[in-house]
């Protein structure tokens, strides 16, 4: 499975460094933080580092749902031409609007030099049996039709809230319908969003590692990939290995928590006072991030918590800078992806089970040394990961 950078605010030199070190295979730019006038140069610079890198731009059309909100944080989105207020009823009364938005978004992405294009779509906020869902399928069909006239590959966006994945019957019927289309997309840019993107002390959001949600996300990857549809998972972070085993072609993660887990509330300015996030270290054996300043203590208790990879040195007796922190995450994730079989799903599930079991033991080892902070949420997290594998296997009829 490939690993992509999920671009966002405060890029600095993270992506360039990631490419130079060969830690990432591509970049998913956030249109909100990339002005269209600067995009071509930005893309050109990265191609000079690695001409094979896959560079795409998330058009973030779903953010237009909040365009009229006084607290909307849309950055450069409105400069991208295709971006406009989303009123679902207008699409029903004027279906040609979908066509215009899809074409204009793809045109501008092509103009700025994206190597793979991502067609826009709406966010399915609650249910796969809704007007939003029907509209999303309409965007998808238009994307497929638009892709026939283009030389570059086009991914269709499928962006849904985790709640929409909880109804198995609707999910199965939705996937049946999508895979049964006479003209299917060649690829999908898939994001699964939570209702609140507030951090969870180094663990993925409990809304996402819920066994039903993760199993459903894996099932989407599996069903689409066996039908020849490439799946690029956005904001997948630590769940990337699970999605890779299920057949996903790529996962992605970035440097802030809102680049590690998707939520529509990222487009709304929060009134809460936010502290600068802590620097963290992604431990493969723990399957979680720990605070950088606790790293020495953790490793003293259980040396295996350190990944034994090059960027561990950035944590020796100091906190790393943000770029090093990001490189460490990509390095650890890339290694985790190598350790699971993404070609044989049965073997891949065994590999994931071993990883989870190792995490259980490693955390148990910390408990033995009376480190119990956050233990309940860790137990819950690992349990949900474990059960999600069973649930996925049942859904995928393996």
């Amino acid at each position, binding site marked *: 499975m490939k690993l992509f950078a999920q671009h966002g605010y405060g890029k600095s030199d993270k992506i360039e460094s990631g490419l130079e070190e060969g830690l990432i295979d591509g970049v998913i730019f956030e249109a909100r933080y990339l002005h269209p006038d600067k995009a071509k140069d930005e893309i050109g610079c990265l191609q000079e580092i690695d001409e094979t890198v896959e560079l795409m731009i998330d058009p973030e059309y779903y953010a237009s749902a909040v365009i009229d909100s006084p607290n909307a944080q849309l950055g450069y989105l409105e400069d991208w031409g295709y971006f406009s207020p989303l009123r679902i009823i207008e699409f029903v009364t004027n279906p040609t609007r979908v066509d215009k938005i899809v074409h204009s978004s793809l045109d501008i992405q092509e103009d700025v030099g994206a190597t793979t294009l991502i067609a826009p779509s709406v966010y399915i906020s609650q249910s796969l049996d809704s007007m939003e869902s029907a509209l999303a399928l309409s965007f998808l069909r238009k994307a497929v039709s638009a892709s026939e006239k283009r030389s570059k590959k086009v991914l269709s966006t499928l962006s849904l809230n985790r709640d929409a994945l909880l109804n198995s019957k609707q999910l199965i019927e939705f996937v049946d319908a*999508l*895979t*049964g289309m006479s003209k*299917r997309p060649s690829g999908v840019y898939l994001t699964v969003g939570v209702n609140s993107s507030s951090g969870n002390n180094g663990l993925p959001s409990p809304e996402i590692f819920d066994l039903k949600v993760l199993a459903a996300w894996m099932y989407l990857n599996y*069903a689409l990939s066996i*039908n020849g549809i490439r799946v690029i998972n956005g904001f997948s972070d630590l769940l990337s290995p699970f999605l890779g085993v299920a057949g996903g072609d790529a996962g992605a993660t970035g440097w802030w928590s809102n680049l590690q887990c998707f939520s529509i509330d990222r487009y709304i300015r929060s009134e809460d006072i936010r502290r600068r996030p802590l620097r963290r270290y992604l431990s493969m054996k723990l399957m979680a991030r720990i605070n950088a300043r606790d790293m020495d203590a953790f490793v003293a208790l259980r040396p295996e918590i350190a990944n034994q990879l090059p960027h561990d040195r950035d944590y020796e007796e100091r906190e790393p800078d943000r770029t090093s922190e990001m490189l460490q995450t990509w390095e650890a994730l890339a290694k985790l992806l190598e350790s699971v079989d993404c070609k044989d799903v049965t073997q891949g599930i065994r590999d994931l089970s071993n990883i989870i079991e190792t995490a259980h033991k490693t955390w148990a080892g910390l408990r033995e040394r009376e480190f119990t902070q956050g233990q309940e949420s860790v137990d819950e997290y690992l349990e949900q990961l474990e059960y999600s594998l069973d649930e996925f296997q049942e859904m995928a009829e393996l």
Partner: protein
Amino acid sequence: MENVPDTQKLIESISEVSALEFKNEGGFKAVYTATIGEKKEALKLVYLPPKSDTEDKRSQLIARLKRESNVLKLCSNPHLVKLGALLPREIQIGECNYIFYSEELLPGRDLKSVINDGKKADIAELLQLALTCLSVIRDLWGMGYVHRDIKPANIICTDDPERLFVLLDLGIAFKIHGTQLTDHGQTIGTRLYMPPELFSPDYKKLIDFRSDIYSLGVTLFEYATGIHPLVPRPQNDFSTVYQIITKQPDKLENLRDDLPLQFCRFVDRCMRKKPALRYAEVDEIINQLEEML
């Protein structure tokens, strides 16, 4: 079939027919061997319920038969039974109304009786059957149709090397009304090959050619092993449907380890409960199977 007419009266009612021999009946049809002109053809006769009641059922039957003959006329696939000389026509015998038409008479036996004799096919026969059915599925789907009744009883095994297997009977398949367990005219034999999605009340929006792929998978499994993958012994309707919806079949490779693994996995995938997990590209599988020939 209700109200099977006296054979002599039937001959007298259809002027083109000079000789008639009753063969069998099932569901809502009776089948005869008929001499029409100088040729022998299969004559299919359907009883129409009286006009005074169940007008819906009557008009649906007529529409179904006309649709069947229309598809047979339009689809040139050689592995689909050909229409005969007599196009659908209504007749009255006594107080009963019928509709009839003719098809080519195929020499050979239906696959069900071949399987019941204990035959377990070799890989060449299985591939031939698979490719035959897939070509029909593809061509019908290209016309916007789903066969919906692919099963051993609807496949004739002939000696003609160009047409080793021929599919019959689109008529029952087009519209499965509500898929109720007590559906008129439906037999358990038909349900055994129906995919899980056809038992849903929403079946009309769920059905596509992948439903035929499922039925093909079950048929191939049975031809390879001699047993049905989900209902190896006769059961009541409810148990049968329950097994079809919930039970996972044994893998074909466990029962026929002499068959190529690729073929076994092909059959297993055809029988997945969810359409999304079956094959979506018929041409692709045809190419893969042809390479195995």
